[in-house]
């Protein structure tokens, strides 16, 4: 059977649900957006106009859960890379939320450029299990107000995957939709194919932002999927126990679910979580900790409890450098998610608490994903795998290397073939120049970037996207 790990018992899920409802009903959630407050009020929340706090009933949550779709497809620019949610095995979301890049040539940490975004897209495109990309964050440039548009449109050009954005300004929306219409050939296809989705973070503890919330309500009729992504940090912006931080994060997520379902019933929502734990020595937010993944995996189970697709933060590290800490933290923050059945894991590509892109880390993270999937797939007990006859034929002594079953199986999924591990003898490994995991990852990056992009957009579409970017530069700066 598939290997299954369970973070929460049935009783614990029920307790979290009850606790979250209690938070929503008795403490309430604050909305800085008047529009959101009105929606909550019109749908039965008890709203205090002075504080902007809405108390949300269990019935409202029930109602929202009824209209939220249980499954939908995140369209890939290449339809072959569509992501059906929920998924049988975890897919991965390229995490380029940070501002810095570790320069591939010099190893120096510097502000990210558009080129870094595009290189990362190309590398991630070739990784197995890649599902969704987040564009990079860019600090500099001559066109600060259209940076985000440039990043999204370039992501469409250099990646064939679904693009998910940490949406910032409502003015950006028309340009992005025009670009998708150019890619897909019609406006109808834009709504239908869903090449683009957005991330919505609540402000822990228990607050919904004003401007950002309005921007999401503005674009809700486009029916772009929304990733609900609370980030309470246990010990700083969240209570200092995993249990209560989970319950509060879940309450924030449920309040977002209610808001978007009341605003537009049927809006596709991904019920995600990016909780963190506090580094008590500095107050910093930790993403590479075992506590982080216990919380996000638990909330992945809550998503399934509600029957909703999910994205969970994982495959993360607080390490500043590629190396042992990065690998250990990423492995330990991926495996529980994969084993507990998360749909999407958001994390590959970054070091430094989602702060810094590292191209070779994308390749390392693919390997981590592959290893975790292998554990998840477990032991195949089908009749075809019962090789009793082989055992009988060989009998005591002898070997199985020449059996048909061995020949067949040696390249099958039953035996995971790592791309980066060295399994040579000591002598052969020395002759090869003692390659390590990261040097192999670097070679893979070099190889990908040296070959022409697979699956580029047609020239005329690229021309149209470039025109849209020029227009955005002019009109927004």
């Amino acid at each position, binding site marked *: 059977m598939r290997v299954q790990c369970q973070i929460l018992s049935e009783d614990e899920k029920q307790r979290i649900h009850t606790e979250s409802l209690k938070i929503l009903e008795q403490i309430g959630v604050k909305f800085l957006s008047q529009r959101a407050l009105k929606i909550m009020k019109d749908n039965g929340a008890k709203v205090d106009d002075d504080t902007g706090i809405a108390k949300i009933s269990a019935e409202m949550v029930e109602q929202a859960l009824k209209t939220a779709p249980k499954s939908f497809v995140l369209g890939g620019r290449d339809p072959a890379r569509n992501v059906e949610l929920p998924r049988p095995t975890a897919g991965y979301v390229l995490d380029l939320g940070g*501002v*810095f890049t570790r320069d591939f040539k010099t190893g120096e940490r510097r502000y990210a450029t558009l080129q870094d975004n595009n290189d990362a897209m190309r590398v991630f495109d070739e990784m197995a299990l890649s599902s969704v990309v987040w564009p990079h*964050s*860019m*600090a500099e440039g001559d066109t*600060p107000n259209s*940076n*985000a548009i440039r990043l999204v449109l370039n992501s469409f050009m250099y990646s064939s995957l679904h693009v998910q954005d940490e949406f*910032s300004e409502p003015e950006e929306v028309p340009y992005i939709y025009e670009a998708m219409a150019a890619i897909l050939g019609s406006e109808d296809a834009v709504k239908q194919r869903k090449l683009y989705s957005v991330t919505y973070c609540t*402000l822990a503890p228990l607050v919904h*932002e004003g*401007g950002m919330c309005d921007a999401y309500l503005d674009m809700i009729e486009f029916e772009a999927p929304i990733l609900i992504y609370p980030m309470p*940090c246990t*010990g*700083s*912006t969240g209570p200092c126990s995993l249990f209560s931080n989970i319950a509060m994060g879940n309450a924030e997520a449920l309040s977002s679910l209610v808001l978007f379902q009341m605003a537009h019933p049927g809006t596709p929502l991904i019920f995600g979580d990016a909780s963190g734990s*506090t580094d*008590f*020595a*500095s*107050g910093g*937010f930790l993403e590479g900790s075992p506590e982080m993944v216990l919380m996000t995996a638990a909330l992945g189970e809550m998503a399934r409890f509600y029957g909703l697709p999910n994205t969970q933060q994982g495959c993360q590290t607080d390490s500043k450098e590629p190396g042992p800490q990065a690998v250990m933290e990423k492995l330990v923050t991926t495996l529980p998610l994969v084993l507990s059945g998360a749909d999407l894991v958001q994390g590959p590509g970054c070091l430094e608490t989602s*702060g810094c892109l590292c191209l070779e880390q994308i390749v390392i993270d693919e390997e981590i994903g592959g290893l975790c999937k292998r554990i998840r797939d477990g032991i195949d007990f089908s009749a075809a795998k019962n090789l009793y006859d082989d055992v009988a034929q060989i009998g005591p002594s002898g070997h199985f290397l020449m059996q048909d079953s061995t020949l067949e199986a040696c390249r099958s999924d039953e035996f995971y073939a790592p791309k980066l591990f060295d399994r040579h003898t000591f002598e052969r490994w020395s002759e090869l120049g003692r390659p390590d995991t990261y040097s192999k990852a670097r070679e893979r990056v070099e190889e990908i970037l040296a070959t022409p992009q697979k699956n580029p957009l047609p020239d005329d579409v690229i021309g149209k996207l470039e025109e849209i970017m020029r227009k955005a530069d002019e009109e927004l700066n």
Partner: protein
Amino acid sequence: MSIEDIFQSILQLKRGEIADLVQAEIDAKTDVGVILEQGLINAMGEVGNQFTEGKLFVPEMLRAAETMKIGLEVLRPLLVEADIKPRGTVVIGTVAGDLHDIGKNLVGMMLEGAGFTVVDLGVDVAAKAFLDAAGEHQAELVAMSALLTTTMPVMADCIGRFKEANMNSRILIGGAPVNQDFAIKISADGYSSDAPGAVELAKKLVPAQ
């Protein structure tokens, strides 16, 4: 009873004891300046050192700062009488469009512990509000925090406005996406990557009289 007890009560986070200890020193006619410097501020200096060395955790540092403040409240009327002024005034806030405040709060608490008066404008603070508050409180320092690439330019704008208005407050900046190069580029007076560093900078820019 001694100044040492006051110092220790802060290091041992004894929120419930400090008021009585400070009152006892006042009753014993110890110089208020001495109570302030050797009892309260020195203790917070030690707290800062232990924090920098990684020995003290943030929740402990915050409780120490809170303890110090309770002691300071007892002393305050006498400080006013004796005309003893704080080391300087810092106006602090997270810039417009940005709601991240964990780091900013840490920096504020540490500055308070170092003897500065801290005026916290909260989050989403517009350039004009920084300008107004710095004028109103005659702030020697203005500390701005930004955690988003989209809000970093607000810092540059703010510095420009301070220059235009001929304000001589010195400006510190910080936050995860900010670095030294950016600070130089926008002509900030200082940058630090963490809260203890922010205190060092502040002390350098506003030397004790």
